[in-house]
């Protein structure tokens, strides 16, 4: 274990036993998911929750050639005026995992000269969707394609008493799921998403294709590509992934794909496209979907992302859409690399991945079609993205009414339900199985 980590864990040890009290303190802090260090906790001594000072850089011993250092090493005791002897570092002859000293970054086996820019789940991209489009070499279309939207408008594809059941699901998630007055955002966000997926899944009675899917939680993605002169990667856990046996149907035909070659990508000079991405010199170029080769559900269908305020990073809608585009692209690219190899090429059969993100009230929908893995140059066939921005499922879900000057402004309970948002959710869910 690193010495620093051991020190930190030791510091956090007694605190970990009092998690209930810490949670209460954490909730009242301004940002969610903060660490214990640097804050005052009155139930423990200050030394336990003080900030851990950064590791001091060891003093560099300069060896001047030709100058012999006279040390007190031979004398076996300190002599004022003589130099301190430097002995060779003692190395234990067996591997003790609790006394492990990590090598310097330059000496690590995976160290490379060229830095790699990694987009992970904590990345808060400054330029948002524009940056994501540039990084993935994509063309944006506002609004979902018609063939997808028409799926939920068809009577046969609707759930019985759809509006009432969705409203009950929202009320359950927002009001009824706890013994307290209202559940917290982390709780109701996940509960709402799971209830909506459960509602959509009840259509398996009439559409048996919906049974050929499975949800995967906590899967880790890895995808690498070259763009311009830089190397980029999408890595890490991101959200809930719905995998299916059959691939999603292609959204844009061959002519439309060819016509994207004329589109010019939007740059945002002077800001570099690598802004806010994690720059690392120790990395491995991996392309991994998160599952083994013989996985029976190889095609990533929909990625569900939650923005519930439980992470250190709170993403605004623009940045959340960027995250959706990047991870949908990462899934598609990893699949393409697994199928066709890492050599850049234009795909004959484009790969489509969908993504839905929510904060419990506002939904964002993204559909990504990967047409090409040749992302080095700015010219050529581009990938395509269809985005639906900021779809509110309901206006207000208030426990107590908002009354101003004895007039009820916002009534208690659920108000302002918008059925179109759920229809789009349902059409994205049914896409590929109808």
């Amino acid at each position: 274990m690193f010495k620093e980590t051991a020190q930190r864990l030791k510091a956090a040890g007694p605190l970990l036993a009092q998690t209930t009290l810490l949670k209460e303190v954490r909730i009242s802090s301004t940002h969610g998911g903060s660490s214990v260090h640097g804050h005052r906790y009155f139930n423990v001594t200050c030394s336990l929750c003080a900030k851990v000072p950064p590791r001091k850089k060891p003093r560099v011993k300069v060896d001047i050639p030709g100058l012999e250092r006279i040390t007190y090493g031979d004398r076996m005791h300190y002599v004022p005026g003589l130099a301190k002897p430097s002995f060779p570092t003692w190395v234990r002859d067996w591997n003790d995992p609790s006394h492990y000293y990590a090598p310097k970054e330059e000496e690590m086996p995976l160290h490379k000269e060229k830095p790699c820019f990694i987009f992970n789940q904590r990345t808060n991209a400054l330029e948002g969707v524009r940056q994501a489009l540039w990084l993935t070499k994509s063309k944006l279309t506002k609004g979902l394609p018609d063939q997808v939207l028409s799926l939920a408008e068809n009577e046969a594809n609707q759930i019985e008493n759809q509006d009432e059941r969705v409203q009950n699901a929202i009320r359950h998630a927002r009001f009824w799921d706890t013994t307290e007055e209202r559940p917290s955002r982390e709780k109701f966000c996940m509960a709402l998403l799971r209830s909506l997926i459960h509602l959509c899944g009840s259509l398996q009675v009439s559409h048996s294709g919906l049974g050929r899917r499975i949800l995967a939680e906590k899967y880790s993605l890895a995808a690498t590509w070259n763009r311009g002169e830089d190397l980029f990667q999408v890595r890490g856990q991101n959200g809930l992934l719905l995998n299916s046996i059959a691939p999603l149907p292609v959204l844009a035909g061959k002519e439309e794909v060819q016509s994207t070659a004329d589109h010019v990508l939007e740059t945002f000079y002077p800001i570099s496209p690598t802004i806010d991405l994690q720059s690392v010199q120790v990395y491995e170029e991996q392309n991994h979907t998160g599952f083994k080769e013989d996985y029976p559900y190889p095609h990533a269908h929909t990625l569900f992302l939650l923005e519930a305020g439980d992470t250190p990073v709170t993403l605004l809608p623009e940045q959340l859409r960027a995250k959706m585009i990047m991870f949908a692209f990462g899934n598609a690219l990893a699949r393409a690399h697994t199928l066709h190899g890492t050599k850049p090429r234009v795909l004959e059969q484009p790969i489509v991945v969908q993504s839905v993100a929510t904060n419990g009230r506002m939904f964002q929908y993204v559909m990504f079609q990967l047409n090409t893995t040749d992302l080095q140059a700015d010219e050529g066939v581009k990938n395509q993205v269809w985005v639906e921005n900021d779809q509110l499922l309901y206006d207000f879900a208030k426990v107590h009414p908002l009354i101003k000057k004895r007039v009820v402004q916002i009534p208690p309970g659920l108000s302002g339900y918008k059925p179109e948002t759920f229809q789009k959710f349902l059409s994205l869910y049914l896409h590929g199985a109808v």
Partner: protein
Amino acid sequence: MAARTRLPLQSLIHKNGNVFRSDRIVHTAIQEPVYPPIVPSLTAKSKSAKGRQIAEHLDKVRAADVQEKLTFLTRVQRKKYVLCPQTFALNADKWYQHFTKTAYLPGLPEKFIVDETKEESVPDTQNASSTIDETAFADIRSHVCHSILQENWYMKKRQPFLQREQEHYVAPYLRNLVSGLTHAMAKHNPVLQLSSLDFDPQVNFYWMRGQRTIPRGHRGGRVEPIRFQIDDKPHSQIRIPHQLPQFVPLEVVMSAEVPEIKFAPDLLPMFRRQYENNIFTGAKLPDPGCYGHTQFHLVPDRYRRDKMAKRNLNDQIEVYLRANGIASLFAWTGAQAMYQGFWSHEDVTRPFVSQAVITDGQYFSFFCYQLNTLGLSMETDAGNPRKNVCWGTDSMRLYEGVKDGAVVGLDDSVLKLLVQFLLNRSG
């Protein structure tokens, strides 16, 4: 004056010639009571006054609507025993049976056919509604295998943190299993189409059973009821808007007895705390899904078979599962009954039925519970012949292990039982 005006009656009768007048009593109109009923005082410092206060309170509770009833019954906080369904206590199932007045019957009710033998043939006398056709069953089997393999084989995962293997490997697979089974069974059981599926819900129940004499203090010598609270967190549960049918009639006399424990609950050990008295089925009162169908419980790492064997507690494995099933299901059915307005002084008029599956990923145990009575408090328990019933199985192994990307030794009988559980519906 009366003496002077008194005339001999006989002469009058003879005079009018009414010798043979019958003396029928003629009923006059019922007279309204002029004075109010005589009842004991309400505010005096006497036993009868206390009795009247209690009676008035009970009438007030009876007359209130459900939300107010729950508030009345849970408003006052006092020290209560916290009953943990997942407990480290040894032989807790007998104690929990006593606290919840439950008779335990090994095996399942007749409507569930437990396929003990390894025969492939299905007897024709089976009820059509309790089985599904072979293609649907094959789909379910493949889905279950894929769920197991996804978590244990296909997905790239890091090593789990110590003592967190269940959460790492089993909890996501169980979620997939439950949602997949519910959606697949919705075709055969229409009530599942209207169901709500909760993950990590909360179930709470508060009740009183038995009495004790307060040993010391300013209230010493007085008799007070013993209060209990269950705070349960199942892995997942299915709630439905219609009630499940009863397994046995309400007033049936069961062969099994409720064990009698003469010791105080402290000796189990059970500990007393004072905090909010919650009665909660998993959703608040306005939710339409107020009845329970099936709960799924995950055995924590500490109570896994290998860990119990290391602590020489092999015989306690089944005991733990039984205690968990009885306590969780009693809390759930009790909360469902209280949501319908029944409580200890207004006993249930129809039985409340729920099911539970307790698993550690590999071994599954099935439990069915029928709540016949809520009258467990010291006043109502005295002449109450009804008792609650719990049926349960021992743990059955679903699969032997995962080897080279395949599930080895999958037992179809356990899957069939799961399917039958989910097919249970009213009508």
